[in-house]
């Protein structure tokens, strides 16, 4: 039977989509299979704290020889906590800044400024993360180390960690700059999709422009705000190169009880831990440990997507109005 071009295209595209889904499931299955020995040896204590994470990783690496017992003990809480702090901090700051920038772009910016600002935002979104890391290492980290950290703060923690500028603050600042362009683009698109009739109706009723924008436009664009936030969180979760360069590369859990010093404390998240220890993949227990970290990152990304979908569900009525889904 001769198929038409449309039918043939449908078959090919369907096959391609099935292939991609199979590939993703295979990748997921492979990672979970490789991660299992690390989770099996540690149980729930894998997610807890206890001892120096760096020394545990070193023991795991050193034990990866043909003879002798293989070490799997790891308490990944310092890396998990570092990931939570950097992601939450960067996305929170980025959300506020991006919302205001998007509102300015859509509503208040004169056309000449809009014509300059929009390409700049797009350019910032396309800069490779290693460039941000270089700027961080050469500019931000020395500035923090030499001008923001006092000698007494350094001396108070020096037996445990080193305050040299490689810090949570540097990581959060640069991650904010990296995630903001993505959020600005999606927020602006969502705000532009709000029906003009709704805004004009509000203005006709005597509500001022500022209040109309925030109460009507921003509220209508909530699905877009959530989508942008989820995307930014996913980018922040998976960021490894830049964080590896500026966060300090130490398996240490920054302690908020330390006060302002927590901003200057070094740490290392889950993704940078994988990057830093990639050289040790030839050691089987290290490989299993890194796959376990990768499995946790995958699970986090999946959970993030589900949470975003669940939060957007009650806002379906705005999608018909043109908000970004």
């Amino acid at each position, binding site marked *: 039977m001769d198929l038409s071009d449309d039918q043939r295209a449908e078959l090919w595209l369907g096959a391609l989509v099935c292939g991609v889904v199979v590939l993703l499931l295979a990748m997921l299955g492979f990672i979970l299979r490789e991660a299992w020995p690390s989770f099996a040896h540690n149980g729930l204590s894998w997610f807890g704290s206890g001892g120096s994470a*760096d020394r545990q990783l070193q023991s795991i690496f*050193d034990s990866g020889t*043909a003879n002798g017992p293989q070490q799997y003990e790891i308490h990944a809480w310092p890396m998990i906590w570092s990931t939570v702090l950097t992601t939450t901090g960067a996305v929170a700051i980025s959300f506020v800044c991006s919302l205001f920038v998007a509102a300015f772009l859509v509503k208040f910016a004169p056309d000449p400024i809009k014509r300059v600002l929009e390409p700049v935002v797009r350019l910032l979104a396309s800069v490779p993360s290693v460039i941000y890391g270089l700027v961080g290492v050469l500019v931000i980290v*020395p500035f923090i180390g030499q001008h923001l950290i006092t000698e007494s703060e350094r*001396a108070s923690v020096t037996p445990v960690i*080193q305050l040299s500028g490689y810090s949570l603050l540097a990581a959060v600042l640069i991650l904010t700059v990296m995630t903001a362009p993505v959020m600005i683009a999606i927020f602006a698109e969502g705000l532009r999709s709000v029906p003009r009739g709704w805004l004009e109706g509000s203005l006709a009723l005597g509500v001022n422009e500022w209040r109309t924008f925030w109460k009507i436009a921003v509220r209508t664009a909530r699905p877009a705000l959530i989508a942008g936030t989820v995307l930014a969180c996913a980018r922040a979760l998976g960021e490894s190169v830049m964080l590896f360069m500026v966060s300090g590369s130490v398996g240490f859990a920054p302690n908020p009880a330390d006060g302002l010093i927590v901003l200057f404390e070094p740490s290392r998240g889950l993704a940078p831990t994988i990057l830093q220890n990639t*050289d040790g993949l*030839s*050691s089987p227990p290290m490989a299993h440990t890194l796959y376990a970290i990768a499995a946790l990152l995958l699970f986090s990304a999946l959970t993030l997507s589900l949470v975003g979908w669940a939060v957007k569900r009650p806002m379906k009525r705005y999608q018909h109005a043109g908000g970004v889904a």
Partner: protein
Amino acid sequence: MRDTTRQPARPRWSRSRFPHARAGWAAIITVVGALGIPVGAGAVTLTGSGSSAAQPYMLALFRTYSQVHKSVRFKYVPDGGNAGVKDVQAGRVQFAINTRPPLASDSGTTYSKLFLDGLCIAVHNGNNVSNVSLTALKDIFRGIDNSWSQVAGSNLSTTIDPIGRNATAGSYTFFQQAVLGGATQASNVLQVTSDGLVQTGIENDPRSIGYVGLAHSKTGVKRLTVGGIPCDAAHIRSDTYPLYRYIWGVVPTKGTSLQVVRFLRWVAYSAAAGQIINEAGAVAAFNASPSKKHRGKRR
């Protein structure tokens, strides 16, 4: 009645459907054939991994060896000396370069000495300290001494920011054995993955101190004497510098590639390799001098 609205079915592979197919296939075959010629000509690629401290020397040696033996190419991953040994044990690479002697855990591998290097101790150029003892060095990297006011000769009174290597580095294991007496570095030591990053860290932090190979301590940082002995070629060659070390070639005990063995023997004994090693900043140990035909004295 004949349906004139329907187009006659075209054969699947008709020239009208794919007018440029023959030209496309000809281009593909030509390109693949051209790429395949070096493979077909007997080119060999030797794969290795290991020390990043020794990478500057090894890259120079690879380049020269490939110029002399045109069919030999190299692929080298500087993932750290310890990681390189594990790569050899796992069969991922044909050889590794390490900066520490063999350990009991290196089963299944054979080590051979190639040339000499020194693990230099470096500080920022603005630090006045010029000498450090092994004991003071141990206390710094164990977190016992954490202020420059505790180190003789320094003009600083700030905290010390020690920078070291991570567990995959042979340099770290050598430092651990030679200075720390088998103990691990303190938690306040910033662990980085290459000598280059140690050098960059020291350049950017006036309070820092770190250990790097000879090649990475020549510019941008200030080399200290250790126990009054400078970290230079002369004192490394005479074994008087306390932290001198051999650069080792590591191969699998069984199934060693003959090409790899030839290369490592060339590195260790040839006059040409000796000249490159000295020019690159390390110290030739066994190589014949250019004026002599016989092999150098083996230590």
